């Protein structure tokens, strides 16, 4: 085979790689764009604040928005203390040893458990065994298991990024370990931690497999955490299943995507602030 001039080879390679990267961006814009463009026409105040009629074929999506917010809030309530606590422990209170290795292994494996298996566990454990029934509580406990590793990892990274000198100053001025953590390290790492939490919100909102068998599919606004409620992502899935590419389906998907986009842009903005702060 004729040997290609290395300069030409590089040009071709650059072109191909640019094509790849371009395709990825185009894919994103195409997917998001298609859904949002088709759905945005459906979104109006009545849609966002109305109740569904005729099995969700008409009307609004308020109960689903409420259920999604409820589920996300409770999941965060559970996983933030646990996740942040674990991260603080792993970074501030121990050195690398077999205990931390074991904990990290546990975190990594938990992160790897497929969401449907967590859903299966949640169904048997929370819904049946603990008799919480199909409820926001069962759903959020399951989802919190899902986002916990994520919060631990991102908080850990954020805390590690805080320069050691900050901590040394805290000790030099007579503070205890806990005081150095709460008054110096955490406030400094806060934007980074918040970024992780915000991204976890994005995951909660889009989660389907682990929620459909735990939080249920009720069309009502949940009155308490023991009530069942359908999240927006699940409603979208059920709509697609039953009605195909209908207006309501596009509208729900568009709302879902727009909220996730907003959440993610917020996370990026926070991350920028964090990097600016610690460098």
């Amino acid at each position, binding site marked *: 085979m004729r040997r290609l001039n290395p300069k030409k080879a590089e040009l071709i390679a650059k072109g191909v790689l640019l094509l790849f990267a371009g395709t990825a961006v185009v894919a994103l814009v195409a997917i998001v764009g298609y859904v949002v463009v088709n759905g945005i026409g459906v979104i109006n105040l009545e849609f966002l604040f109305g109740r569904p009629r005729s099995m969700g074929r008409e009307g609004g999506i308020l109960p689903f928005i409420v259920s999604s917010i409820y589920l996300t809030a409770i999941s965060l*309530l559970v996983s933030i203390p646990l996740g942040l606590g674990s991260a603080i422990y792993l970074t501030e209170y121990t050195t690398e040893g077999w205990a931390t290795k074991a904990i990290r292994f546990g975190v990594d494996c938990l992160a790897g458990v497929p969401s449907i298996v967590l859903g299966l566990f949640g169904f048997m454990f929370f819904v049946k065994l603990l008799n919480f029934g199909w409820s926001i509580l069962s759903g959020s406990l399951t989802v919190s298991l899902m986002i916990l590793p994520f919060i631990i990892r991102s908080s850990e990274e954020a805390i590690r990024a805080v320069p050691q000198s900050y901590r040394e100053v805290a000790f030099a001025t007579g503070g205890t370990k806990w*005081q150095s953590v*709460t008054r110096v390290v955490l406030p400094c790492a806060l934007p980074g931690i918040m970024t992780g939490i915000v991204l976890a919100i994005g995951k909660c909102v889009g989660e389907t497999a682990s929620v459909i068998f735990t939080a249920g599919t009720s069309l*009502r606004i949940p009155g308490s*955490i*023991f*009530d069942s409620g359908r999240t927006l992502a699940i409603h979208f899935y059920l709509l697609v299943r039953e009605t195909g590419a209908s207006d309501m389906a596009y509208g729900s998907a568009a709302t879902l995507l727009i909220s996730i986009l907003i959440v993610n842009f917020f996370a990026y903005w926070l991350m920028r602030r964090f990097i600016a702060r610690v460098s």
Partner: protein
Amino acid sequence: MKIRVYQALLVLACVSLALGIGGGCSKRTGRQEGRIRIVGSTSVFPFVEMLAEAYEQTKPGVRVDVQAGGSTVGIVSVRDGICDIGTSSRELRNAEKGGVTIIEIARDGIAIIVHPSNKLDSLTKKQIRDIYAKKITNWKGLGGDDASIAFVTREEGSGTRGAFDEIVMGQDTRISPSGLVQDSNGSIREAVATSPHAIGYISLALVNQKVRAIKVDGAAPTHENLAEGKYPVVRPFLFVIKGQAKGQVKEFIDFVLGPKGQEVLNKEGLLSPIVK
């Protein structure tokens, strides 16, 4: 700043405790007053939701919670006492019948659907059986185009599939495992609507313009044929109750069986139950 963090945490803890307790209390009392839990068939689900909507308008203060999970899940849940009414779109098996009351609330036809461009408009039960058992694999053999038949079915535990198995496939023939499986009536309809060579079965009430329901054994799937028993593929929609129906549950069932409830169902294409 630390004090504020502690205060915030305390407030948060109190709020969640309150939510939990409040929720717990409402759960305890809610079960008896003003709350009916219904779980079951995905086919019956949309109709029960409509009935629940209509019922809640006549009786404000009552909340009817409907979950879809499948016919079998409905039957199992009501026997376990997890819900008040279980719904099913197939007859109960003998093992499931102990200790429960079965009430038929409607009858539904199962339509055999094909893509609108398909030349065929009638098949015999045997032909349908052979298609699903993969004995006939090309439309050509039935007078259609030369193309392989893509047959679509529901998942194993579905009530609709159970009824189809009983009525069309019979005791001795099984649906071939190489059939496409979709998990709801709607998704079968969408799959057939977009694939020119597909065939599937769905609840008659869910047939729309996108697909064509064919005649079975010469009988078209119309209400008249259903009512007169000419169209063979009919299955019951059932409410299953543990023991006897009482209180709120009984009132709801009376509503469903009464004129208002039946009007809701008939408008959607379901038949009223056979009065025995």
